[in-house]
Every structure is written in structure tokens, then in C-alpha cells.
């Protein structure tokens, strides 16, 4: 699943470690989501959406699966 997490993180000037702390996950998990290797659960996706104040579908796009 494609996502705009890396772009949003850059816009908010967060490092991966900052974002990991805010989401209460490991930095490796943030990296795996950004690189499309791991798709977050619905609760984590909502947490990300709330943090960046955007709807989930603005951040995650399940229509393209050729990112991996």
C-alpha cells in the first residue's frame, strides 16, 4: 500500500525517531511503513491520520500495490 507518510513527516519536520515516539511505535516500524514494507493496522492508521490532521485516504492509498 502506498502512503504519504515520508512527505508528511518532512512537512512537519519530524525525524523517524520523533514520529515513532509520537505514535508509540519503534523507529523500524515507521521506516517499514514509509517504505511500504509494512501496512499499519487500522488503529495505527487512525493515529497517524489524527496526528497529521488528515483523512486516512489522504495518507494511505490501497489502489496501487506495486510499491514492494
Amino acid at each position, binding site marked *: 500500500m502506498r502512503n504519504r507518510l515520508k512527505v508528511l513527516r518532512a512537512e512537519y519536520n519530524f525525524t523517524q525517531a520523533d514520529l*515513532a*515516539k*509520537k505514535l*508509540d*511505535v*519503534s523507529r*523500524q*516500524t515507521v*521506516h*517499514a511503513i514509509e517504505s511500504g*514494507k*509494512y501496512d*499499519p*493496522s487500522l488503529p*495505527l492508521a487512525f493515529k497517524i491520520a489524527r496526528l497529521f490532521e488528515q483523512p486516512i485516504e489522504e495518507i494511505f492509498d490501497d489502489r496501487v500495490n506495486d510499491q514492494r
Partner: protein
Amino acid sequence: MEYTNMNTTVKKSVVKLAMWTGAWLLATALAAFGPKFIWDGNTLISAIFIGLNLLVGVGMIFANIHHITSLDEMMQKIQLEAMGITLGITLITGISYSLLDTANVIAQDAEISFLIIVMGLSYMTAAAIGYRKYK
């Protein structure tokens, strides 16, 4: 908004798990070698230390559950996959190994220690592959 530091929680659970594992190893060593080297085969003392070993083992299981639940969802997934692979490999190799013994294909008796080594190695390998997969 207040954020909890997951890394601190994980570090604490790792320390707790390491302590319980160490205690279990010590209790196992005492229960295994005590009858021969310390209390000269006294059945009552052996039974007490085997019971202690069992209780510490239960504590170690709870420490492990606490550790797994302190991990985030991706890390839990990696651990769960590693555990599933380990269970499968141990079951298959354990039964084959036991059959080799009962059919007298191998000269020596099947030992549980071999199975524990297989478990340890397959868990470590599967976890390492899992971490690499999401790296």
C-alpha cells in the same frame, strides 16, 4: 498531548524477561544437578526444587507475555511469525527424531535437549529473517 516512550517500556520488559530466564536456568540447573552433586539423591529436596523450577518457569512465561505485549504491532507480527515457524519445525523434526529412535534407525535414545536446540536455532533464524524482511 502526552506520549509514552515505547522504547523505555520494551527495555524494562527485556530486563525483566532476562532476569526470569536467568532464574529459570539456575532453577533448572539446580533441579538437574542438585540430586547428584548437592543433596545426594534426597527425593523430597529433589521434588521441592523441581516444583520451584516449575514455578519459576511459569513466571518466565508471564514475563515473556509481558515482553511481547510491550512491543509494537510490527514487532509483535515478527515475533508471532517466528513462533509459528518454530512450532512447525519443532513438531515436524521432533516427531521424525522420535520415530528414528523408536524404529531403531539411530543407536542412541532421542534426547529432549536436541529438540530445545532446534527450537532455539529456528526461533533465532526466523526472527532474524523477519527483522530483515521489514528493514
